[in-house]
């Protein structure tokens, strides 16, 4: 890893994030709760507390945002059929579990069709991945014991859609654990899972909106056990030495904190399964906001079910310590500082860019400026398309320069980083390349963007 440090602006010598791009296979989970329980039976909570004091502070900044869309009913309704992206979840037996729009019960026939398609192909020992009809993609993700389906008119690729479905699957697992989910269906194939998932629809809705509007989902960028976040930005995280969190799990945590009003008024204690970490069991989280005068959210995750008070005290100590070190002020200050636009950072020729440092799995983007302030989704779509061009399985590209009537985009995949830059449509390639050179230099020098790397 250290050999790449020079090439990648913003890189750290050691990463605490799992940096794999793969979204598949629970088999390759990074850890085992049993193992942690055994090796740390005695000092789990102290450990996480100790870590706070002396080691491994890493900082990242990601701005996450989401928009809510109106819910709609009625299946023959024009509005329902014209939605950009539908998402459905059903059991292997075809029982409705979730529909992004409209009531699942009224769509029973549709779930029946989906289940039939899946089992028809399975009959030949094959697995249905997608169907394409005009601009509409039907993407299937068959993950026992569930079937997830996306029907999309967006330009997103099959890979991108199925990774979103994977997030939805993980969200469900995160509420129940995979072990329990499997057990339920082993015992009763016809089980109505909605019983156990009441309230989770909200989280899934939010997660899908989130994954549509947030670049870090596309980039697979972001990582553990004491996590401090605010306004959807990770401030710091502290972990036990051996264990890492996958960005996909962190996104679930962001999603949970962002969509749970109840955390704001009290200390909470909640079970949480992080499917990429270990899908078989729960971690238990102490969730609280630091203080009245600092609205950062602190999560302390442990494997013990009944150590609420231990962690509650740990939290008090952490807050005192941060307060003595004037850290609360520093956090508030940086929360109040807005990211700079490209123009503000001295690159008026750039409209916007995404920079992902591979070794840390972190990314940076400047504040969105016109002409995209009102068409954020358009910008995200451009990035998704470019990302797909670089990572397409059949013909991956290293460098893409594409000009359209509205803008020009340059996408570049290197060993150490990925960069996506959006320009004015009329820019010529020579100036584009020289601008990118100076942008990378600026990032390398630490620019404002990465000024908060290590404190």
């Amino acid at each position, binding site marked *: 890893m250290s050999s790449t440090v020079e090439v990648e602006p913003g890189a750290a010598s050691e990463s605490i994030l799992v940096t794999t791009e793969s979204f598949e296979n629970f088999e390759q989970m990074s850890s085992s709760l049993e193992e942690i329980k055994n090796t740390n039976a005695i000092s789990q909570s102290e450990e996480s507390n100790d870590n706070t004091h002396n080691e491994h502070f890493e900082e990242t900044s990601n701005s996450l945002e989401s928009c809510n869309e109106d819910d709609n009913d009625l299946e023959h309704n024009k509005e329902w059929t014209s939605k950009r992206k539908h998402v459905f979840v059903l059991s292997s037996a075809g029982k409705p579990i979730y529909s992004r729009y409209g009531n699942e019960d009224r769509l029973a026939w549709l779930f029946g069709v989906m289940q039939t398609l899946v089992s028809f192909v399975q009959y030949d020992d094959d697995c249905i991945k997608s169907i394409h009809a005009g601009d509409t993609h039907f993407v299937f993700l068959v993950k026992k014991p569930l079937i997830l389906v996306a029907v999309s008119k967006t330009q997103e690729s099959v890979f991108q859609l199925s990774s979103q479905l994977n997030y939805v699957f993980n969200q469900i697992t995160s*509420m*129940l654990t995979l072990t329990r989910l499997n057990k339920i269906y082993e015992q009763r194939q016809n089980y109505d899972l909605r*019983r*156990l*998932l*009441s*309230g989770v629809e*909200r989280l899934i809705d939010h997660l899908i909106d989130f994954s549509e509007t947030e670049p870090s989902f596309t980039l697979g960028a972001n990582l553990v056990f004491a996590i401090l976040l605010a306004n959807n930005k990770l401030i710091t995280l502290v972990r036990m030495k051996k264990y890492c969190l996958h960005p996909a799990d962190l996104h679930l945590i962001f999603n*949970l904190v962002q969509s*749970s*009003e*109840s*955390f704001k*008024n*009290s*200390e*909470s*204690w*909640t*079970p949480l399964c992080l499917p990429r970490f270990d899908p078989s069991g*729960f971690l*238990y*989280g102490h*969730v609280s906001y630091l203080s009245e005068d600092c609205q950062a959210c602190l999560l302390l995750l442990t494997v013990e*079910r*009944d150590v*609420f008070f231990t962690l*509650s005290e740990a939290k008090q100590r952490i807050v005192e310590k941060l307060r003595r070190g004037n850290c609360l002020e520093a956090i508030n200050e940086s929360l109040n500082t807005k990211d700079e636009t490209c123009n503000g950072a001295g690159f008026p020729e750039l409209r916007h860019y995404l920079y992902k440092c591979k070794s840390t799995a972190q990314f940076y983007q400047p504040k969105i400026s016109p002409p995209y302030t009102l068409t954020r989704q358009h910008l995200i779509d451009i990035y998704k398309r470019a990302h797909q061009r670089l990572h397409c399985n059949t013909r991956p590209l290293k460098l893409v320069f594409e000009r359209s009537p509205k803008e020009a985009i340059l996408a570049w995949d290197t060993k150490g980083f990925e960069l996506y830059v959006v320009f004015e449509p009329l820019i010529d390639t020579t100036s584009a390349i020289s601008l990118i050179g100076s942008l990378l230099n600026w990032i390398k020098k630490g620019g404002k963007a990465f000024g908060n790397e290590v404190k």
Partner: protein
Amino acid sequence: MTSSYRPNLMPNVMLLGDSGVGKTCILMRFRDGLFLCGNFISTVGVDFRTKVVSVDNTKVKLQIWDTAGQERFRSVTHAYYRDAHALLLLYDVTNKTSFDNIRAWLGEIREYAQDDVVIMLLGNKADCGSERAVRREEGERLAREYNVAFMETSAKSGQNVELAFVAVARELKFRQNGQQDCNKFNVQDYVREQTQKSQCPPCTT
């Protein structure tokens, strides 16, 4: 004035009941005097809050666990049952199912909680008017059957909310002083007396 303050009087009180019966709302009304109108805030896991109440010059610091009603959180809530000194068990008077589930809740309580735990049954949303689906007498009858205290409450109007918590605090304080056996204080009688006295909600808002 703090001469009678006892640091050891910090009882754990748990709020239980189906999802959506108003556990968090009751607590918000009691603790902050607020009612969250029309906003459904779903509790995730268990929330912890404290509030100090005075019982005859003794300060009792209630440590209140507000639990999520959904079935999938039962394993976490069970872990905290055994430390609870008092349980406020809620149903929604406009939702018959939540009332029917009370027997199952009492079964769980018997299984996981301490034998001497103080239990109070609360029929919430008593301000509902014509939407009512559970009559007051039905609540009373069930409470009598299980020998637990009962009252109807409204987080919206504030009716009996303070009383529910204070009654529990009072009972726990008397037990602490070892006066439980000689029947000097009985939470059920107290509740009966107090609810009759204040038919109109206390003007705390």
